[in-house]
């Protein structure tokens, strides 16, 4: 053997279409349409040019509201994911196509059929990001309506995924009979078993229930980005849960969602990153972010002045459609402390605490840091969240991808045709229950 490269873990990359929160900078002159198909096409083609594993779309079920009115400071509105992905299947050839579909406001039969359709029509490139959120506010748009107990969310989601897989396995001519706690289904799946066997299942969530659900049922876990140490701990914890479900460590990929800023020098990148954070946290957005924690109207406060002395009021329902979990008193105190220690205004505090990018630097710096994260077992890859539509991925693909390839950590061509093949996941064995 003449090869001197040590064997490296292959990095997996995915692209997240810029979403409806303040990560997406719509005020930038380079910011294009969030709804025209050309924007989706540009980002998906860029991701495919960069040999990414998949393209990811989030889901909207209710426009966010603040103080009883539609929240107007961030991007509002988006298309229905599966319809866009089927259209993108026409303009891409290898790229995986991932749609977020809620397990609470859908039925397993129809969801299984729609993902089987995408998998057939794309030649085996479909992925389903299963989310379990459920609240009365969102439920007002749906037949099923309101609330699902937090514990029930995951049992419903687990049963939902299980039924979908039974339907995919059964294909046509072999009826499925399922009588469970949440669903009763009898009949033929209608669609033959999809090319991938099962479309790839992604699960997002860092909670203990979420981790356990992912370990039992998911192929990819979409997590939050933290420090290398925190990433390692999460990685070890989740991978450690797999054996109990009869699964191998490589059966579940861990992919944190990350942001990035590139520059010609590290210093220039830092400067750019700070500028983007100021764009992301406008004065109005700073007050809004504070109100989401404090739960009360703070419109009389000066965004360039000090933080409020009053304490938060939990569960006022001031902001709907995006919930702040956890202890708001502790969070408010932490922010006040930071503000006092560093002499930061409201806006500066929000910038400091909420919007720091994951990777900042030259292409070389970012490639090295990403590689270290993966080789250090803090992740298997990343879901990149650009801050600009539709050009936010261009520089990354042109500059960082070649350096990752140079390091021997990223593919130089697609080896297979299906998303499972890109992710190194085996085709599931068909289990026929009927």
């Amino acid at each position, binding site marked *: 053997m003449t090869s001197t490269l040590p064997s490296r873990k292959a990095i997996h990359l995915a692209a997240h279409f810029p979403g409806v929160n303040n990560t997406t900078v719509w005020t930038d002159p380079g910011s294009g349409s969030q709804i025209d198909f050309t924007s989706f096409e540009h980002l998906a083609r860029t991701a495919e040019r960069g040999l990414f594993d998949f393209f990811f779309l989030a889901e909207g079920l209710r426009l966010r509201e603040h103080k009883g009115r539609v929240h107007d400071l961030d991007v509002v*509105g988006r298309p229905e994911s599966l319809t866009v992905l089927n259209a993108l299947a*026409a303009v891409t050839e290898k790229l995986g196509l991932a749609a977020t579909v809620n397990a609470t406001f859908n039925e397993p039969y129809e969801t299984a059929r729609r993902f089987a359709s995408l998998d057939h*029509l794309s030649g085996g490139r479909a992925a389903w990001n299963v989310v379990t959120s459920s609240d009365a506010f969102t439920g007002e748009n*749906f*037949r099923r309506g309101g609330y699902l107990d937090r514990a029930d969310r995951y049992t419903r989601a687990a049963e939902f995924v299980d039924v979908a897989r039974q339907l995919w396995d059964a294909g046509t001519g072999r009826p499925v009979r399922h009588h469970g706690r949440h669903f009763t289904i009898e009949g033929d799946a209608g669609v033959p078993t999809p090319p991938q066997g099962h479309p790839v299942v992604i699960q997002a969530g860092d909670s203990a229930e979420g981790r356990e659900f992912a370990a039992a049922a998911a192929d990819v876990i979409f997590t939050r980005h933290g420090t290398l140490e925190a990433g390692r701990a999460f990685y070890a914890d989740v991978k450690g849960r797999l054996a109990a479900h009869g699964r191998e460590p490589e059966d579940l990929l861990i992919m944190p969602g990350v942001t990035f800023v590139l520059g010609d020098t590290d210093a220039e990148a830092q400067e750019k990153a700070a500028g983007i954070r100021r764009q992301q946290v406008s004065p109005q957005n700073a007050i809004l972010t504070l109100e989401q924690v404090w739960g009360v109207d703070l419109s009389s406060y000066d965004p360039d002045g000090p933080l409020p002395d009053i304490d938060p009021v939990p569960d006022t329902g001031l902001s709907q459609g995006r919930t702040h979990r956890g202890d708001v008193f502790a969070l408010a105190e932490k922010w006040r402390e930071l503000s006092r220690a560093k002499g930061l205004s409201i806006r500066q505090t929000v910038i400091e605490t909420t919007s720091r990018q994951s990777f900042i630097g030259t292409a070389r710096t970012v490639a090295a840091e990403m590689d270290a994260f993966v080789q250090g077992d803090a992740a298997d890859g990343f879901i990149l969240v650009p801050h600009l539509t539709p050009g936010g991925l261009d520089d990354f693909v042109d500059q960082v991808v070649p350096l990752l390839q140079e390091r021997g950590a990223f593919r130089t061509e697609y080896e297979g045709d299906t998303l499972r093949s890109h992710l190194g996941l085996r085709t599931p064995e068909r289990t026929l229950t009927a």
Partner: protein
Amino acid sequence: MTSQPGRGLLHLAAAVDLAGTLDAEPYLRLVRLAEHGALDFVTLHDTFAAAGPDSLSVLSRIAPATSRIGLVPTVTTTHTEPFHVQAAVATLDWVSRGRAGWRPDVSPGDDEAALVGRRQPPAPADLWHEAGEVADVARKLWDSWEDGAEIRDVATGRFVDRDKLHHVDFEGRTFSVRGPSIVPRPPQGNPVVVVDATRPYAYDVAARHADVALVGIADPGQLATARAGLRRRAAEHGRDPDELRVLAALRIDLGGGERTARPGHGGGPLPTEEGPLYRGGPVDLADLITDWHRRGAADGFHLTPLDPRRDLERLVNGTVPLLQHRALFRTFYPGSTLREHLDLARPANQFAALAQESS
């Protein structure tokens, strides 16, 4: 004048149903053929439990690979969520740049109900009542964003003008929806609604909600009467009847020869269980279409080929050129949206109109 169907250009649509076909390519070939013939739109049938991919997914897959032709999938309303249905149809309009329609249908079968754990579906009259409500709420949700709601006002930091976003607060018999939609108002304002008016219990849904009503009647005189009746009923619902296109729905079997075994179009189409069936050559079909159109029987035709690959090719290369030669059918698409092909106005926004009245 659209109220005089014999005088204007006629409208042509075709079904591209390919039972059990899973790949996009065969559908794409048919839709491109139909687009080559400058047809107004294609339909793709579906049921809640049909074999094969769902039709809205197929036509989304087709959209970027075509440029002018309208795309009308069947979407069922019985076991689906109205909010998801309208969002998907609006998105088809976005990805096709204004070429989407939908054909609401119901799921009356016990087998379909069993797939969602329901013991039996509601009675057919109730199913169509619900389908009408879904068509109604879909329009409201498409209008829940006014045109120009996205303002991107950097000075005030506002991406949208929320005075132009509306809760719809729809209360139906079987569901309610608060709104607004998640999807901005689609390019056509409202994608085109196509209803099979001859389906039992669907007549009133067509008169109330359809932009295009399909009527399967084998006799041109009776068809003209049915058209007049639908227009009258639409007017009773407060609609402008000229905003409703009535198309004759025919199944076609264009066989192998230029002309039918019997010369001329003989006795015309035969009534069958699944609607009138026309058997003959492409030239005879052109004669029949010409004759019915001049008699004012319909504003156009929706043709369902028995053998799509063969019959659509014969329709586009045999029948359509004759109709074009007789100046009854367009030779190219002057417009780019399905509404433009159908000569239907882009609808005013119902919430914007309300806001103006109250100010």
